[in-house]
């Protein structure tokens, strides 16, 4: 479904990604783990078209999306849940969700999608007319995911969804991701919360200093001695 081939990217003179290749299969949950500054967010932004790639190819559903602007990547079926949520703070919850379903293909079924998101996240329905900036961190994360779902993605890209959230809320969010995946949406989640991410995903990649250093089934990565010492402190 998503194939990233030898992607390079960076900022000005500073290269952040070196020949990154990865794959997300149909209906799969894949995670990318790695320390702060490894280039995880850059990778998400490059796939979403927000940040330009210097080289390499990104193919989604057999169609090259490497140089597409973000609004075209979105229409192609990729939705982002950005790092730090980045909800539109001065807009209401409803307006945030409606923006999620802005693009033409999703707009036709916006009402149904809205009801579906409200059913998945009843908290959002309760707070429909509040400004997004007044929500708690967990609620903002739900809103960011709900907003992405409104775009009817076939691939959901999440950048550190657990960042700054209480463990119990992280559990809720990851359960919801599982449920969304069960309904047919592929998921690529970038995480520092290694254990949770590897328990959620079927496969994982380790990204260090802009390079993929390991790829394995999630269960194997959890048992991997390098991963255990580096990320779990065991």
């Amino acid at each position: 479904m998503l194939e990233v081939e030898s992607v390079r990217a960076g900022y000005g003179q500073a290269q952040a990604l070196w020949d990154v290749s990865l794959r997300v299969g149909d209906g799969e949950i894949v995670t990318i783990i790695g320390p702060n500054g490894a280039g995880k967010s850059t990778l998400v932004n490059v796939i979403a078209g927000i940040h330009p790639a210097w080289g390499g190819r990104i193919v989604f559903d057999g169609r090259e999306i490497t140089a597409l602007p973000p609004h075209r990547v979105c229409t192609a079926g990729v939705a982002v849940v950005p790092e730090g949520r980045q909800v539109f703070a001065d807009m209401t919850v409803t307006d945030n969700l409606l923006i999620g379903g802005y693009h033409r293909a999703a707009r036709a079924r916006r009402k149904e999608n809205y009801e579906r998101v409200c059913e998945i996240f009843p908290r959002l329905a309760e707070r429909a007319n509040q400004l997004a900036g007044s929500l708690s961190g967990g609620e903002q994360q739900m809103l960011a995911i709900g907003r992405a779902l409104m775009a009817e993605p076939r691939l959901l890209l999440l950048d550190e969804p657990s960042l700054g959230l209480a463990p119990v809320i992280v559990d809720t969010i990851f359960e919801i991701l599982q449920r969304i995946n069960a309904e047919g949406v592929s998921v690529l989640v970038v995480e520092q919360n290694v254990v949770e991410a590897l328990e959620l995903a079927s496969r994982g990649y380790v990204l260090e200093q802009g390079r993929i250093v390991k790829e394995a089934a999630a269960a194997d990565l959890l048992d991997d001695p390098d991963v255990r010492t580096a990320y779990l402190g065991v």
Partner: protein
Amino acid sequence: MSLWTQSIVSGLLSGGIYAMMSLGMSLSWGVLKIINLAHFSFILLSGYFTYQLAFSYGWDPFAAILVCVPVFALAGMALQWAFDKLRVSEFESLLLTFGLFIIFESIASTVWTADFRRMDTVQNPYQSQSVWLGDIALPVPQLAAFVVAVIVAFGTRYLMEKTDFGRAVRALSQDRDVARAFGIDPHRVAMRLAGLAAAFAAIAGVFIAMSRALWPGLAVEWFGIVFSVVILGGLGSTLGTLIAAVIIGFVGGVATVVGGPPMAPLAIFLVLIATLLFRPQGIMGRSSI
């Protein structure tokens, strides 16, 4: 006493034209970050178009709106397209559109000369018509401009608050990258918004032509009023612009009674200076600007 009331009422009414001139400028500066001096040229040229349509073809000045709005909306969109291509910054836009303003002014003096141009009472019967409220006269062009400005201001507010277009505009101004990631094309939105702003300029021009004589240097006189209204109202706020336009009109009207017509600009600029000193974000603006 009647002179007082009359002056204040006509001051308030001229707020309608001020609002019509300023609404597009406020959108352009507040949302598109383009300080568009060509906006004044659009108002002036639309005025001349109205005059010419009446003079050459006997068009009713109100009918000129049907021509001027689409013509200038397209011009505004074309200009925004160029600004996007050139990646013009806020400050560069001021310099660039100042050049355009000079060019348009020269075009106006070439085509219509430096003479005063005014529709006669046959071409424009409205300029001598008034609606009477007791012994207070409400001139039809100013009254119509006021009504239209109120409709346009509330219409724009509705557009911004309740429609997909408005949500897209707000999303873009809050977080451009995330908005783009949800299918919003910033260039398209900016072009539409610029078209809307220019359409407002076109409407303002029609009302200007209906209520006074035109000459190419006229547009310079609007700078002070329009920038005062835009800043007092708060950048990008349609309702704020409307209220500010009425306040500026009122202040100008009172100053005219107290000290004669030359006092009006002085009073208006004092309001502008006070705004910048004490409430730089304007009456309805966000404090972050």
